[in-house]
């Protein structure tokens, strides 16, 4: 199993008061499987993805990613997981401001020692990023930045793709092309895809669909 979440709870502290965001979420994902995660704004979708990526730790419950129990892992193990196993596409792109598009694209792949210039080149082409190689993130539009973020996550050929509204800033045609790309990669390499989306049309193209309400999956 690629990903197994059991009874995960998570609350955020803001302004001194605790807000329970996840109140017992369970979900599992097999290799080759694609799942759409939907839910209202503020329902905790990003929080859930961040937990799966090992960016934060749940208050309760278990998360196992490719055999690794995140609750027991130390910082270095989590960092290794983020580097090599998980490809996280952030809702806010999160590009590295001091690096060019080219360096941003290859960054994670090179960090994890899986640099493949041909694959990077192909990704850049399919994401429509040719000609932007030497620009810096601040010189890109929102949609362009989003496509670089997607390319960066896919360049390392991760076992688990976690995508947080990857097409939120894209027009319909580009969004479709991006999803095609991800589905192809999943089919090819047997990766898993957990994708947050507000679009029922895109959600419909994935294998399964879960909805987050009241801190639980339905």
């Amino acid at each position, binding site marked *: 199993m690629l990903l197994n979440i059991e009874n995960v709870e998570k609350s955020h502290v803001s302004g001194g008061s605790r807000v329970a965001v996840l109140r017992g979420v369970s979900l599992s994902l097999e290799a080759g499987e694609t799942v759409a995660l939907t839910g209202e704004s503020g329902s905790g979708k990003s929080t859930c993805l961040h937990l799966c990526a090992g960016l934060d730790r749940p208050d309760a419950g278990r998360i196992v990613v490719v055999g690794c129990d995140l609750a027991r892992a130390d910082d270095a193990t989590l960092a290794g*997981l983020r580097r090599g196993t998980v490809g996280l596409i952030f809702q806010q792109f999160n590009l590295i*401001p*001091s690096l060019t598009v080219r360096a941003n694209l290859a960054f994670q792949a090179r960090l994890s020692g899986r640099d493949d210039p041909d694959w990077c080149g192909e990704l850049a082409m399919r994401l429509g990023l040719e000609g932007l190689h030497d620009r810096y993130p601040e010189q890109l539009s929102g949609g362009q930045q989003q496509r670089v973020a997607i390319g960066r996550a896919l360049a390392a050929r991760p076992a688990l793709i976690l995508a947080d509204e990857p097409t939120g800033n894209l027009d319909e045609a580009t969004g479709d092309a991006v999803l095609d790309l991800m589905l192809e990669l999943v089919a090819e390499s047997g990766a898993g895809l957990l994708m947050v989306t507000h679009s029922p049309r895109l959600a419909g193209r994935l294998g399964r669909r879960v909805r987050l309400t009241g801190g639980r999956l339905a």
Partner: protein
Amino acid sequence: MRRVALSALLAHWRRHPLQLATLLLGLALATALWSGVQAINAEARASYARAAGVLGQDRLESLVPARGLPHLDQDIFVSLRRAGWQVSPLLEGQWSRAGISVQIVGLDPFTAPRSALPGMILDETRITDFLAPPGLAYGAPETVAALTGVVGLPPLAAAEGMAPGLLFTDIGIAQSLLRAEGRLSRLLILPDQPRSRPELAAIAPGLERRAPIEQADSAQLTGSFHLNLTAFGLLSFAVGLFIVHSAIGLAFEQRRPMFRTLRALGLPLRDLVVVLAGEVVLLALVAGLVGIALGYLIAAALLPDVAATLRGLYGATVSGSLSLRPEWWLGGLGMALAGAAIAAGQSLWRLWRLPLLAPAQPTAWARASTRALARQGIAAGGLALVAVLAAVHGQGIAGGFILLGALLISAALALPGILALMLAGGARLARGALAQWFWADTRQQLPGLSLALMALLLALSANIGVGTMVASFRLTFTDWLDQRLPSELYVTARDQEEARRLRDWLAPRIDALLPIWKVEGTILGGPVEIYGVADHRTYPDNWPLILGEADTWQVLARGQGMIVNEQLWRRADLALGDTVPLPGGAVRALVGVYADYGNPKGQVILGLDDLTALYPDVDRRRYAIRTDPAAVPELKTALTEEFGLPSDSMIDQGRVKEISLMVFERTFLVTGALNVLTMAVAGFAMFTSLLTLSTMRLPQLAPVWALGLTRRRLARLELIRAMLLAGLTLLVAVPVGLILAWVLLAVINVAAFGWKLPMHLFPADWLWLGLLALAAAGLAAAWPAWRLARLAPSDLLKVFADER
């Protein structure tokens, strides 16, 4: 409305106490170093003025022996008084015993200008004590305190308002203290003279009139020393301003959204600027007061060493204790205000020109602008040109300081550009993704850190420059001392008769007896000492000549020429072969120039026979003895037994060297302390910049963390980054520091002291300084890095949510 705006703006500081502390501390430190130095200068100046005013000598003409003789006869005083001249006798001299030394001024309480005497001298109860042996000596309270318990001095009495370091006694008492029975140094000419009196030449042909001592006498000699101190103070102040500038700049950037809101709510731009300027003035006043208090402490700590230096180098006596003088604390406050104004000027100007709907996000800080770097580079080039022009055409000490200032500012301005180039080079060499990011990200940190790095550059170059100067000096000076002091023992007889007996007694017991006889006088408008040297191989073997021919010493021995020290040579702009008039009218040709480090006075050396022929009354009591070094202790004992010579009239070579070196060690202690303080200020600048940057940096670090780096590793990289920048800055600082050292040694020193020093390099010192700089950078980065290592993941995640 303004009050409301002000309280809204001040609320910022309540939420950022650390930033407030940085700003205040930076300005306070800058003010402290500056006003500390000024306090020292003001104290010294006051001491000079008091010393020059002793007994009204700054106002009254006096009669002195003509032809540079050291003394005049007491009888002359009597004859002049009889003839109607209103004069008052003075005997001045240095009394010393067992390493304690004090200036004795012997006077006649009945004829001395009354206004210049401590009132109590003429008290009926005391006047008899003053006149009759053992006498009574009046001194400033601190002088009296320092001399209490010293054997051999008359009873002491404290008198307020006297110049430090000297004692007033009755002239008769002074004559016996100074072993100068029947002699006077000079006669003061009192202001009220009878309408008709005989011509001076008719009564006392051996005397000449001398103008009042100029107030500026000590002040002129020591001026360059104080200029040096001032330059150091100014440098520290500039380094401190870097901190203030960045703190104010940051506070303005962070409050831009607030400015926008205030203006949108109807506060006129002019009012906003006025309110902000008021805020800056308020902060400057607070910081200025703290700085002045700190400066007082610094000055009080350094003053004893400065006083010792001035005494040793220039013979100027400066009070060792500090008093609060309005001229320096007002000056310090003024500097704090001016500094804050300079530091805030740019920010206020930018605000003035800011359109209402400009983006509210702080941008100027983190953005690397190539154009700004280029602009700075051009300014740096312009200043470098000024420096070159000053080096080629500059005159005197002012030219030297223009050169120094232009050089340092130019280097500071050029630094960010040079670092950017170095970092770009590093990035090109980098292989891994992380290394590449590291270089690129470091490059992006430059604008935020450049002010701190400039401060570090200034501190490091000053350190290298001054350190090289000091070490070069020490090396040259000890070598030179070894050459200049070849004689094993130096003795001074108590009178001419004893000197004659000494000579006879010593002759069979030692290798050679070399007279050290001198007269004082005026040559080419400046005071000089004129010595005579025996015709002995000691001199050609040891005396370090800067200029001269092979036969220089023979020419001297034949009485056909003179040699002068480097100071006089430079001051009077002499060349070999020039003929120079000596006091008394004789003329000699210049046949050589010798190095004479650390002596403020001009010196002339003649052949010994020539000297005694020109000045038959020369004081013949001092001798240098050449003998087997091992025999020195025995010889000293024998001299004591045979002649009853007190131990302070014999001094061996080692002791002379020790004393000479000590003077310089203390000079350098002062510069060393200022150096360390400047380094500390630069380190602090680095720390505050890193700290403020660390909070603004999260958006750059969070993505790298998310992509698979631990916080700890990131923190380590942050540490390395700070140390890398410090190391690169050191690379720039070494050449700048060496140029600085050259300017100090070859330009400033010549202008200030009249001698030029060879430059030596001490790479081991740079290594040490490099380690210090790395340690400082590491320390400065340690806390921000530690905070990063412990940052909660949720705080990093928040960055992602905040980003847009």
